């Protein structure tokens, strides 16, 4: 009885972490599909989302919603400037240069956040209180519900955007073949810029909704970014739904592993899964086979 309740608790917290990983992974996939770049700075937008919201709430005393909107707006501007200043000038760059540039951007953003907000860990109030709800014997925080709701909303919205809007379809065209897309009159450069904007906005949103549960500091971006990457690798870059499943699976395995095997190796679990998937099935569990990855 008690252990089944515990199991349910692990599953619940695993799924809510998993939803966050899925959102971050989504950001990776959007940029990868439009540019072929893995943006190592993705995690920093997650950090920016959380830190900026805390800053607006506690220093400027803004209400919650304007604080969140401003935080997402500023993170998106950072994402856009990053693309304009560092990615676009490099035409036909080797993957190695692109990796080094995005790593450079990642530690630059992290360093700037450290200088502005210091090295302290900041707490963010939950969106609607901390009174736990009881569900089948397990406790669930309102914030967990927020995480599930926001994740589902973002995924539905992006699905509609990519499948039914003309801009979304244009972005998908670029991901299949950017040369052909430009031949039919799609402005590929703008689509790349847009993919950075959307991806940094989604990343910062993920950072905002997780911050009340885990606290936030200038260096949370590394781990969250890497976990998001694990999610997208498990699910496969080409599959949107796969990324979500990958994120949830990673969250679950991590939470169960931490609960039943060893809490101190919690972070190692994600990376062992990452390496195994990369070695055995680099196209992801749910992705279509693509020769490019090899």
């Amino acid at each position, binding site marked *: 009885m008690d252990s089944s309740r515990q199991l349910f608790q692990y599953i619940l917290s695993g799924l809510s972490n998993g939803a966050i990983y899925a959102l971050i992974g989504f950001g990776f996939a959007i940029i990868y599909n439009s540019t072929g770049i*893995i943006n190592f700075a993705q995690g920093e937008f997650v950090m920016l989302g959380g830190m900026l919201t805390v800053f607006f709430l506690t220093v400027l005393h803004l209400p919650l919603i304007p604080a969140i909107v401003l935080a997402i707006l500023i993170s998106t501007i950072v994402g856009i400037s990053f693309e304009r200043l560092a990615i676009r000038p490099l035409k036909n760059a080797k993957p190695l240069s692109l990796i080094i540039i995005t790593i450079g951007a990642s530690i630059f953003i992290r360093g700037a956040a450290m200088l502005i907000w210091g090295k302290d860990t900041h707490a963010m109030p939950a969106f609607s209180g901390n009174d736990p709800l009881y569900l089948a014997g397990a406790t669930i925080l309102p914030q967990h519900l927020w995480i599930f709701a926001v994740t589902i909303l973002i995924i539905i919205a992006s699905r509609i955007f990519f499948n039914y809007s003309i801009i979304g379809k244009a972005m998908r065209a670029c991901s299949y073949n950017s040369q052909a897309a430009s031949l039919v009159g799609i402005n590929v450069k703008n689509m790349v810029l847009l993919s950075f904007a959307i991806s940094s906005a989604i990343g910062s949103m993920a950072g905002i909704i997780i911050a009340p549960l885990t606290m936030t500091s200038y260096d949370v971006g590394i781990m969250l970014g890497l976990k998001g990457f694990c999610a997208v690798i498990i699910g496969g870059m080409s599959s949107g739904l796969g990324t979500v499943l990958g994120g949830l699976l990673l969250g679950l395995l991590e939470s169960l592993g931490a609960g039943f095997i060893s809490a*101190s190796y919690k972070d190692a679990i994600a990376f062992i899964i990452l390496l195994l998937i990369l*070695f055995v099935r680099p196209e992801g569990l749910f992705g279509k086979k693509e020769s490019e990855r090899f």
Partner: protein
Amino acid sequence: MTGKKRQILIFLFFAAAVLLVPLFFKGNYLLNVFVFVGINTILAIGLNLLLGYAGQISLGHAAFFGLGAYISGIITTRFPLDPWLVIVLAAVCAGALAFVIGFPILKLKGHYLAMATLGFGIIMYIIFNETVGLTGGPSGLSGIPNLHIGSLIFDNDLNNYYLVWLFTLVVMLLSINLSQSRIGRALRAINDSEMAARVMGVNARILKVQIFTVSAVISAIAGSLYAHIMTFISPASFGFNFSIELLTMVVIGGLGSIYGSFLGAAILTMLPEFLRVFQDFDIIIYGLMLILMTMFMPGGLISGIQKIAEFTAAKIKGMTSNNAQT
């Protein structure tokens, strides 16, 4: 003068300069900084063989550095074994590990390789932290003995300087030699186009694993030296940030340039010593350096300086010839 003779001359000149440096810095704390410039040069060259020659990225090289340091540290604090023998053992272990994981990891390319090596580095870092019984965990491992040859104990800056730089010079010489060899040319071919290299009969798969192994062995030797010189090690020195610092050294100095690796290591090791403010800004400056160097000086400082020198020389020549005409 032929290219080969010129290279030997440059190396001899460099070696002589290195050996003479302590005469000018006797008793100076800078000598201590130079010891770490030497260790970082070994590490940067190790990574450069992989990154600059073969074009394969590794974001987890601090793990091999740490592995060397911990194997030396753990064994010499527990068993009365000859530390020199343990250095060899540590190098063999790191090499064996690199060889085994090299096959699946180096099958990956580009971004995927970067993420896989990063994941490997983080797993090793977690192991250093969590196997408290062996490594002492986050609070570190202390009491590692200094190295000695007979009655010559390497426990002061001057002795350590010669110890480290002797290793550094040997690693430099071997690496320069490697780059001129058949293997070096094959590696550069893989860097330009793996497909083309394969077509020309280069066994790219084995070669990449071999250079990864060599690179890991070099890093582990640097780790052992570091452990015996510091006599104290903790996981913080072998984390993701240090892997990035190594990458920055190689990129700043120049991919594929051995002296560039020395320059990069020297700059990144000495800057914090000269600029106290650098303490808080270092991470931002590394980030900016990585971005700006990749964008504007992709060949690194060494080739950048050469280009600027050639450019100004051509300019001056042009001006003088113009003057002569008028």
